[in-house]
């Protein structure tokens, strides 16, 4: 794989936008209960939040349930027979029981297990047993409480405001413009890694938002793929971009990586496959379209590894030549987070391909473990109060940008103000 001499030196253009303060960043938002409350109200209570993709409701009358713990929201998302996607609070109108207890399924009518009140998947209350014994209850007033819901390129978002101050499109802003028409290969198939972690949600989000740590934390797993001792020893990104409230980093990929001589199983797993990068691609049109899309590695520098696109506040759509994966970071307390990683892959069509996927999944899981292990120690160290500020380099722009946008939302009187829309 050829590369030009310009990028052979890790001398890429500055990533940090000129309008972002480059001073030390306070750590209070990562450890302070007061900040957690502000984020509850001003960030998660006002932003559009990604719940998943439409393929997770694969058929008419499919449903899924989700939680936004920081807002104590229990969310039911339905697809009706006409393919309308809707969201509701998963709460029965009678005695406010949790209505649907399964995580997913297929049903057009839901019944509450407590007293058998029933609801259609468009939210209408369809049945109240012994209705005559109530004091003038009106079924039409007893439907499920809707949650504002919208879909962008197959990603389902909700907004917990009674009346969202901004539309989803306004919220995504320049990100949506840049990623218009972006393909999402294998969107209907993913393997999933999950955990509950003892870290603030931003701590773990930050861990996936810079490649500076690669040579140090991941020497065995991916140290030689997203960094290169000769070309880019510190794993500097190729470029970074702010898109309104959202942000993207384009990482370097080592063009010279081959599995070591004695990595017999790795070589076996990748026999016949392109080993240009541990997350390497295969020859299918959608992957070509992804790599060719203007938003993927927008400077189109060679030696491209992968892009991290971090949608404010807590959702990543990351992708490389082999496809995309998503991260969700759901705050459950100031120092605990529910994290879900979904890696989208094609369904294997051969034994060899399935073995390659196992290797990919294993390596990915080990990388995640390395990242996560460190952040739990980091959270404790941060909570010690020994230090109050972090020093971030240019390659850590995504972290700086995230902190700045969160601060803006916390300080703004409205989402419109936070997005500079009026």
């Amino acid at each position: 794989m050829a590369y030009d001499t310009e990028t052979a030196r890790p001398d890429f253009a500055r990533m940090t936008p000129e309008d972002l303060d480059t001073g030390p960043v306070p750590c209070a938002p990562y450890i302070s209960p007061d900040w957690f409350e502000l984020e509850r109200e001003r960030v998660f209570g006002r932003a559009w939040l990604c719940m998943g993709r439409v393929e997770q409701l694969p058929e008419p009358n499919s449903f899924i349930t989700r939680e936004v713990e920081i807002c104590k929201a229990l969310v039911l998302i339905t697809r009706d027979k006409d393919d309308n996607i809707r969201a509701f609070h998963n709460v029965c109108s009678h005695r406010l029981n949790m209505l649907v207890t399964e995580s997913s399924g297929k049903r057009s009518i839901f019944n509450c297990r407590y007293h058998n009140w029933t609801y259609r998947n468009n939210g209408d209350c369809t049945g109240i047993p012994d209705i005559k014994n109530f004091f003038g209850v009106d079924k039409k007033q007893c439907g499920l409480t809707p949650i504002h819901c919208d879909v962008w390129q197959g990603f389902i978002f909700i907004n917990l405001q009674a009346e969202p101050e901004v539309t989803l499109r306004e919220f995504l802003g320049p990100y949506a413009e840049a990623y218009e028409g972006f393909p999402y290969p294998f969107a209907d198939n993913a393997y999933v890694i999950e955990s509950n972690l003892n870290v603030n949600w931003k701590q773990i989000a930050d861990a996936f938002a810079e490649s500076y740590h690669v040579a140090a934390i991941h020497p065995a797993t991916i140290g030689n793929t997203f960094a290169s001792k000769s070309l880019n020893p510190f794993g500097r990104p190729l470029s970074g971009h702010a898109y309104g409230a959202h942000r993207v980093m384009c990482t370097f990929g080592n063009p010279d990586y081959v599995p070591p001589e004695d990595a017999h199983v790795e070589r076996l797993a990748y026999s016949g496959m392109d080993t240009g990068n541990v997350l390497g691609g295969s020859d299918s049109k959608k992957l070509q379209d992804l790599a060719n899309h203007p938003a993927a590695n927008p400077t189109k520098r060679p030696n491209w590894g992968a892009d991290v696109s971090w949608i404010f506040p807590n959702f990543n759509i990351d992708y490389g030549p082999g496809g995309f994966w998503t991260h969700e970071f759901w705050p459950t307390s100031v120092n605990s987070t529910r994290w879900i990683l979904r890696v989208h892959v094609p369904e294997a069509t051969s034994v060899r391909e399935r073995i390659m996927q196992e290797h990919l999944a294993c390596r990915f899981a080990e990388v995640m473990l390395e990242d996560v292990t460190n952040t739990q120690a980091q959270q404790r160290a941060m909570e010690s109060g020994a230090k109050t500020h972090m020093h971030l380099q240019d390659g850590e722009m995504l972290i700086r940008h995230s902190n700045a946008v969160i601060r803006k939302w916390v300080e703004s009187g409205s989402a419109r103000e936070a997005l500079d829309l009026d």
Partner: protein
Amino acid sequence: MTDKNILPAGFESLEPFVEYWAGETNDIRWDRRSRASMPDIQAFYDAMLARAEDAIQHLEQFPLGDMPPAEERLFCLTLSLVHASIAVELHEQPRAIDSPFPHGLHVTRGPWPHGGGMGQSA
């Protein structure tokens, strides 16, 4: 009693490894490798690697996801070789350096087949 560990003809020498190493889901295989000692991992790795190419070629004769029980077991064993290789080829020890165990991460849905699926759907 020994029926459940039987592998296809020609792979009998791997049968002692079946009970521990032929885990049916990603998460189980990950857990088993994480708990094993390095000598045990190395022994399995050496034995399985020697037959891996034969195993793949044997399994390729059957439809993916619909193989007889002995073949499915051989398939899970081969998938475990990948997990063992993480210890042998990557970490040179059973688990990632400085990583806690248990670590609380789970593959709640693995690639098909023999990935396992629980928790949230795709």
